[in-house]
């Protein structure tokens, strides 16, 4: 079709067409594979072999990974102690009022180590039904203020915990204000079990988010006292509990690192925990739990990944088998033109 001596061109005056042919052909679009949509292409289609082997492959890869992660999760030793109801003394009917009254609220808990726990053992507190991800809450902070002493007055986002008597609060906002303030003391066989609270926050936060020369100021000075108070002489970058707390959780149930126990615990060791039950979760029926956990390559105790991998792997295996079966029982020729309806009754469709 594209050759230059097309028969139709000979019908006109032969001389004139020939002389103008180069000029005309110069208008011709430049050929390239892209412009002609003729780039070399691989056109895979879903053949039974391809699809069945894909499913087989997935199941072969997924089932071992599932087993491995399940084992990893099972290796984790975890002690969970829910204490918020037990730590209310007998006879207190109004828990909220009890928790809001100032003063020591000690509580003793005993934990038994079910299995040998290798160090480091992480100590978490877990809160349930606590919405750190609430919009009002999550926005109520000032990153500027946390980092730069000069930006102390950048508190517009912190409302309503932005200022007390016209003076900016450092650190401002609801998150800092509601800092968790239960404390735990561990002892093993009547000897103090040291808790390392250094390095529990992210290194990047300590170095980049919280200023070394930003000191708490005017904190918990308002009419409403939220959570913990901060030592005014320690810069924010050293207030690791605050730094951990300020990493807001995306789920209403979350754990935050309290500290690390840097010694191994033997099976059936009994740990005495003396805690100060200060934090109010009673007004919203939130649970408080103390968690001691070891860790593996996959993180803490979480069976979900293992089970999900096994399920997906199993389902893929099942699908592969089913497709194979259907393929063998009811083979169907691919691309058979007799399936085209217009081949069966020409003219219509």
């Amino acid at each position, binding site marked *: *079709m*594209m050759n*230059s001596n*097309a028969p*139709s061109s000979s019908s006109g005056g032969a001389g004139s067409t020939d002389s103008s042919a180069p000029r005309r052909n110069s*208008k*011709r*679009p*430049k050929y390239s594979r892209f*412009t*002609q*949509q003729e*780039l070399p*292409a*691989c*056109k895979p*289609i*879903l053949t039974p072999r391809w*699809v069945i082997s894909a*499913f087989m492959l*997935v199941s072969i890869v997924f089932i071992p*990974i599932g087993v491995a992660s399940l084992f990893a999760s099972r290796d984790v030793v975890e002690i969970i102690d829910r204490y918020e109801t037990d730590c209310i003394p007998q006879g207190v009917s109004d828990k909220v009022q009890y928790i809001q009254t100032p003063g020591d609220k000690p509580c003793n808990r005993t934990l038994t180590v079910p299995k040998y726990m290798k160090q480091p053992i992480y100590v*978490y507190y*877990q809160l349930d039904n*606590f*919405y*750190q*991800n*609430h*919009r*009002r*809450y*999550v926005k109520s902070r000032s990153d500027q203020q946390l980092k730069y002493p000069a930006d102390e007055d950048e508190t517009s986002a912190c409302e*309503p915990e932005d200022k007390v008597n016209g003076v900016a609060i450092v650190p401002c906002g609801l998150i800092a204000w*509601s800092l968790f303030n239960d404390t735990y003391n561990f002892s093993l066989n009547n000897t103090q079990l040291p808790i390392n609270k250094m390095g529990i926050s992210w290194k990047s936060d300590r170095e*980049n*988010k919280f200023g070394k020369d930003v000191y708490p100021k005017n904190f918990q000075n308002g009419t409403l006292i939220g*959570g913990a108070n901060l030592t005014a002489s320690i810069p924010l970058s050293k207030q690791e509990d605050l730094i951990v707390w300020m*990493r*807001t959780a*995306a*789920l209403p*149930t*979350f*754990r935050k*690192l309290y500290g690390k126990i840097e010694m191994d615990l033997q099976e059936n060791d009994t740990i005495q925990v003396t805690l100060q039950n200060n934090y109010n979760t009673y007004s919203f029926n939130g649970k408080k739990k103390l968690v001691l956990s070891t860790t593996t*390559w996959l*993180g803490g105790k*979480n069976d*979900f*990944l293992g089970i999900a*991998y096994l399920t*997906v792997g199993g389902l893929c295996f099942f699908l592969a088998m089913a497709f194979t079966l*259907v393929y063998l029982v009811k083979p169907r020729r691919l*691309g058979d*033109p007799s*399936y*085209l309806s217009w*081949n069966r009754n020409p003219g219509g*469709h």
Partner: protein
Amino acid sequence: MKRYVYINDDELSQDLYCDNRISNTKYTILNFLPKNLWEQFSRFMNQYFLLIACLQLWPLITPVNPASTWGPLIFIFAVSATKEGWDDYNRYLSDKKANEKEVWVVKQGIKKHIQAQDIRVGNIVWLRENDEVPCDLVLVGTSDLQGLCYVETSALDGETDLKTRVIPHACMGIDFELLHKGVIECPNPDKDIRRFDANLRLFPPFIDNDLCPLTIKNTILQSCYLRNTEWACGVAVYTGNETKLGMSRGVPEPKLTAVDMMIDKLTGAIFIFQIVVVIVLGIAGNVWKDTEARKQWYVQYPNEGPWYELLVIPLRFELLCSIMIPISIKVSLDLVKSLYAKFIDWDCEMFDIETGTRANAANTAISEDLGQVEYILTDKTGTLTENKMVFKRCCIGGIFYGNETGDALKDLELLDAVVSGSPDVVRFLTVMALCNTVIPIRSKSGSISYKAQSQDEEALVRAAACLHMIFVNKNANILEINYNGTMAQYEVLDTLEFTSDRKRMSVVVKDCKSGKIILLSKGADEAILPCANPGQQTRSFSEAVDQYAQLGLRTLCLAWRVLEEDEYQEWSLIFKEANSSLVDREWRVAEVCQRLEHGFEILGVAAIEDRLQDGVPETITTLRKAGINFWMLTGDKQNTALQIALSCNLVSPEPKGQLLLINGKTDDEVCRSLERVLLTMRTTNSEPKDVAFVIDGWALEIALRHYRKTFTELALLSRTAICCRVTPSQKAQLVYIIKSCEYKTLAIGDGGNDVRMIQQADIGVGISGREGLQAARAADYSIGKFRFLKRLILVHGRYSYNRTAFLSQYSFYKSLLICFIQIFFSFISGVSGTSLFNSVSLMAYNTFYTSIPVLVSALDKDLSERTVMQHPQILFYCQAGRLLNPSTFAGWFGRSLFHAIVVFLITIHAYAYERSEMEEMSMVALSGCIWLQAFVVALETNSFTVLQHLAIWGNLAGFYIINWIVSTLPSSGMHTIMFRLCRQPSYWTTMFLMVAAGMGPVLALKYFRYTYRSSKINILQQAERLGGPILTLGNIEPQPRSLEKEATPLLLIQPKNRSPVHEPLLSDSPNTTRRSFGSGTPFDFFQSQSRLSSSYSRNCKDN
């Protein structure tokens, strides 16, 4: 209403009528911004985005930075406005050029040079040969003594032949420079180019100042060209945009494709869904706030809020859900649409070598519609045919010439006969050269070109010239002929003009050398053969006519008779008398002619071909197979139209096809005819039969005016129609009727008379052909040849539709995906409207991460071009909108919901407890979405080129690179997050889990449907790639050729009386044809077998 035009009187008509400024622009500098913005904001989507952008300015409710909406919004608007502005500027420039053209105007007897735009109604405009007429003029003078001039009207009605115009008899013989005063009484401007009912009265000092009636014959209209006339002058009656052309130039409406409308509809549906979500979540949020949030002391909800407090949460959700409607879709679509258009421009296979024109997409926005075309309305002359009549064969004195070679001009036998001076052949050639109204024009270089009112005559004269009988010159009544180097002169004594009743035309000439008077005649066989000399055998001629007709050639019988001087003189008197009679003139003239036209010596039969363009029958067959209905709308006559329709496979011969004729001169006749045809159509509709109806302009006018409903019903029942002698505005009306029934129409034409139809249709295609570029300029697409239409529709249109269908639904999918995750997250964040994702991620997700991979879907090809050409039926999927409709959209909706659930559940479970840090989790969910969308695009991509791989997998890598870069910035919220995640094995296991869980079911479902519920597209894909029987069919090109070969013998069995009738294309003759088929009886063709369609399936079986 009348307008009175005072000739040459500036005071009286100065400000009454507009000046001659032509304006096609849409905007002025002042109204550009408001008008353009108003137009842009009339689209629902834009209003929506503006509203969202305004709401985001309120910091209390905005979840993200307002710049993330304002930036893209302003960008989009700026791009659209710039494009519109540029187009309008170009229109302004071309108008300016036309307006500032210099023309001569005669004022008080003095010629002045003024700009075209300064012409006023009443001015006398003076034109030279080959000038374009600047406004509508009433002729008052020409260089011709008899007051004639010739104009070319192709820009107006598409007819290339020259038309004769004559000055009113009142002006006859008056020197136009003396013509000072007068009045023309004419109707208000209208668009009817065939009518001009006006009167002229000249003021004293002219004695003859009676009313002189004017008709269209006395006018020359804007955009025509003056030809073969030294000069002409006329009085401007209509100017500027009020000319006949200007009035018929409809304002082109901006076209919106069906796909766009579907997208708008889906957007509306999503909007409603969004409102429902917002209301539900808003109520839930307020309830949660009043019950739960008050107990959550750390949130410190104030007890008393401002009055709008109840609205805050719903509005927050509105903003959170605003990403449901992707702002990126408009940008993406605009981008890919301009790419589709570029592909059309770039296509080497749509480059016409002969004329050196490439295909061009002037309108970049409607490529998808090409794939959804259901009706093609095509012009005939110049569109289907080459608009070149060629003399092909002849039979002289019983000897057939050209039968072997197919071209008589190359037949050595004939050439020998010419050289040797065989008397039969010489006489035949003399008739060919003389019996016509052709005007030879000698150019400066000495070559002779011919201007004829009838293409047939031109073809005969040209052929005669090739056979050494050269018609050299026409000087008043003297014709000069050069035969083999000897000059001969003939004086034309009388011309017995062609009428459709006589079906022949004759001239009486006197050989200046010998003084012999000869009658030369040519005409249809049934008009000539019966008048033969009783002594002559005519059987061989009628056999020749039959044979030629079977080959689809137009036949003309040529005859002559030597007249006696006395006989002629006697007849001449009667003829003059008849010609000047006032009553029944036509009938009387015909009767007088009859007296002379008898006793002919039949010389022979000439066969002329109006050649179809290359590939027209194949193109029409293929497109009809693709389920496209063809209508042929032509200004031409019924017979010519039918002939062409047959030879280009537009109508199938019997028994497959049936032709129904609608005719009639009065309302009743038309109505009856219409009813009858409709009845036949209804009864035959169930049969697999191609029923076509034929209607002429007159009946169409009546049908459209009085029986519109019936006609519309008929139009929808019929797959094929042939409309003859229709005007440009009727063409446009027909397009409108089909369009108003929600069918996608494509109009294709090449002349100025097709412009309105082209503008009216959903898609206008112009052929940049011999008739100039009006049509191509007005059209959305212009191509060099009709055959490229096949590729334009089947390849470009189909791909565009498929690609846009995927791209638009995918855009909604990815937006819904992320929006569903936000909604789910709101249930675990106290229904407070927290955004899981940060502003940067959200903006980048919509405009970058998910837009880049899907843009390469603009290069995707589901089937190869060859397969589509072989199986044009596959276009049905596009026409029926199978790939983009509410149910496919529901599939995508479901998929996004499913994927959102997968991503959300896996994220919150894998990242529970001590890992539930907000920034980390948001990145886990986001990367889950990115992984899934990469695999979705990969799964839905049919052909992977380098670009596809680069875009899909490169984008995935790009996502990580960008986030790593952002993660190094200490000031960003996600500082170090991405590095932390990528070091965790659990992150990667989570990703793989999401991909497997998200894609597994989708793949399984797709595989099942692909293999066990396969669509036609799937089957062809499989066949194509597994090298099935379809591939061994071989090249597409040979196949249609074989169709053509098989189609030719079908015509052989046509009965004689249906053979083409000689009719020179005298487009001005008012009466229409009303014969050839009995009134309304089905037009039967005989055909042995419907091989056309069976050849296809047989080919398949063979392999």
